[in-house]
């Protein structure tokens, strides 16, 4: 809607009395829809009963367009206050000061209406300024995005060109090396190992990038107090507590809230002996993490576990396993006896002890059927989701990051170096020029 006097857009101002007022930011007046006047004038009945005297154009109020429907505004006067009324939609255009004047002249015994008309105009002016600055901010944002897109295109073309040039130089080098090449040695095991080295190096580099992504994710999310967890990816740290009863680690019998195990059997073959995994798993029971502000349930299914303190038990000199390990294996349904006595087994386990500090990065979700409550222990749990990582560790965030930093350095530095070195060795060892 536009002001009939200056054609500026009217600004909507919310009011305590209820309906929004459409106010001219240039302070020329304000618009009231039909029926809204009773909310802004105390004695509306008196206003209605007073005969409305039509005012001639010579009184200085020109007829103009209705801001709402585009119809004609007729100049009117009531209780010595001039205004304009639309013939079609019955709304009123009140010039500056008219609403205050009407309200003061039509006081009644009803609830007091306190109007602050100048405040409406001030707020309209501020809102107009805010929307202008938002428009200019949007415009400058679009300009920045335009420049940003240009910069991105520049770097894409530059790096793409550099990569193409690098490939051309590489192919030229390969052609120069391979062209007059004779292969004096037939491909042998050494070539296979070197090729594996190239593949392995690239694999290490890719693993290093994955570890770097995980490290970057842990670094970029602040730790949340459990009391104020929000649904979504969260990071918490606190003491581990069992949901119901404490569990028992399978091979050591230690009381814990969570455990993971790994059983390997020794296999002998012509090429030597190797350890083959025959069973591995984790406990399924959820546990609580509690900090100073509250506690939240953690469902450890599908979590990436970083529990470096492994306890390993093996067969002794007589080839038998400890009694506790025996019991743990039979509870897990793993057969111990082989053809010639007990199998040679290596049993590893890691566990989270009660009251041990634990770090969890996962997705906070609402429990099904949870009643609305402010306590997160009743409403939320942390578990896995398809879109986010889920990490449980008995290390602090600082220790975890330090460990990841070294791993990233080793894999990202060592992987490409290994691949490049093996590639160069292949060409050096197996490619010679000339007969």
């Amino acid at each position: 809607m536009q002001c009939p006097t200056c054609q500026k857009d009217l600004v909507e101002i919310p009011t305590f009395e209820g309906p929004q007022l459409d106010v001219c930011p240039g302070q020329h007046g304000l618009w009231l829809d039909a029926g809204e006047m009773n909310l802004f004038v105390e004695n509306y009945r008196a206003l209605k009963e007073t005969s409305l005297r039509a005012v001639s154009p010579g009184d200085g109020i020109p007829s103009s367009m209705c801001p709402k429907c585009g119809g004609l505004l007729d100049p009117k006067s009531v209780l010595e206050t001039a205004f304009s009324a639309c013939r079609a939609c019955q709304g009123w255009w009140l010039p500056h000061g008219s609403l205050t004047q009407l309200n003061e002249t039509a006081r009644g015994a009803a609830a007091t209406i306190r109007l602050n008309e100048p405040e409406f105009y001030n707020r309209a002016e501020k809102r107009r300024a805010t929307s202008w600055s938002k428009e200019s901010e949007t415009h400058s944002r679009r300009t920045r995005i335009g420049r940003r897109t240009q910069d991105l295109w520049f770097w894409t073309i530059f790096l793409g060109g550099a990569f193409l040039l690098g490939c051309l130089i590489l192919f030229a080098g390969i052609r120069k090396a391979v062209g007059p090449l004779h292969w004096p040695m037939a491909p042998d095991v050494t070539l296979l190992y070197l090729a594996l080295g190239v593949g392995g190096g690239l694999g290490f580099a890719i693993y290093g990038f994955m570890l770097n992504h995980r490290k970057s994710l842990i670094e970029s999310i602040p730790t949340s107090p459990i009391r104020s967890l929000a649904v979504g990816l969260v990071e918490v740290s606190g003491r581990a507590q069992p949901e119901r009863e404490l569990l028992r680690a399978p091979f050591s019998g230690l009381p814990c809230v969570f455990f993971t195990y790994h059983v390997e059997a020794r296999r002998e073959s012509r090429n030597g002996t190797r350890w083959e995994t025959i069973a591995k798993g984790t406990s399924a029971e959820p546990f609580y993490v509690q900090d100073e502000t509250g506690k939240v349930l953690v469902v450890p299914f599908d979590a990436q576990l970083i529990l470096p303190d492994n306890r390993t038990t093996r067969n002794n000199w007589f080839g038998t396993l400890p009694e506790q390990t025996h019991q743990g294996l039979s509870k897990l349904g793993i057969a111990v006896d082989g053809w010639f006595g007990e199998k040679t087994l290596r049993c590893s386990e890691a566990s989270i002890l009660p009251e041990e500090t634990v770090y969890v990065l996962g997705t906070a979700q609402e429990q099904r059927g949870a009643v609305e409550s402010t306590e997160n222990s009743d409403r939320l749990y942390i578990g896995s989701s398809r879109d986010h990582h889920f990490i449980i560790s008995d290390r602090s965030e600082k220790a975890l990051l330090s460990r990841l930093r070294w791993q990233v350095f080793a894999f990202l530095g060592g992987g490409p170096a290994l691949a490049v070195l093996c590639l160069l060795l292949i060409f050096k060892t197996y490619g010679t020029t000339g007969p």
Partner: protein
Amino acid sequence: MNGTLILGILLVFGIVGLIVYAVGLYNTLVRLSNNIDKAWSNIDVMLKQRHDELPKLVDVCNSYMKHEKDTLEGVTNARTAYSRSRGVDEKAQAENQITQALGKLFAVAEQYPDLKANQQFLTVHQRISALENTIADRREFYNESVNLYNIRIEQVPALWVARQIGYHARPLLTVASADREDVRLAFANRAA
């Protein structure tokens, strides 16, 4: 073994590594920036919940605190100011006003034992207190997210990527000096 081959291998590996690193850096900055927006939205959700509780509180207090009109109007006006506010700064300011007004109201309510014994008042009071604690925690979380972002965009080499994509430092949520002043209480029914 020729130099061209070595140069070619090093160039290809180097440029691929550089591109992958730059992409990773860009993604990290985008994640940090979006974390801030999410942290603010999570505060906004709590503010809205508190905003919705205020009319219940004023209704309960109205029947008991007949002479504390100013205090009750302070809460109502602060609530109205919040509903009119736009943008992070205005909403943060309005939120500070509501916190002050509520603090005053609860302090005044201590003078009315009948009100304190009212079950509905106790329920609403508990709920609002819990919401206030959550809001305070989430404000700290928001500031921590902003801090991580600001540090990252000023570190080398993220600094260069941040400048290219137009990322600038963001302000922390702070409390205005007027809101840090102690609340002045005036009890209407104070005995002479």
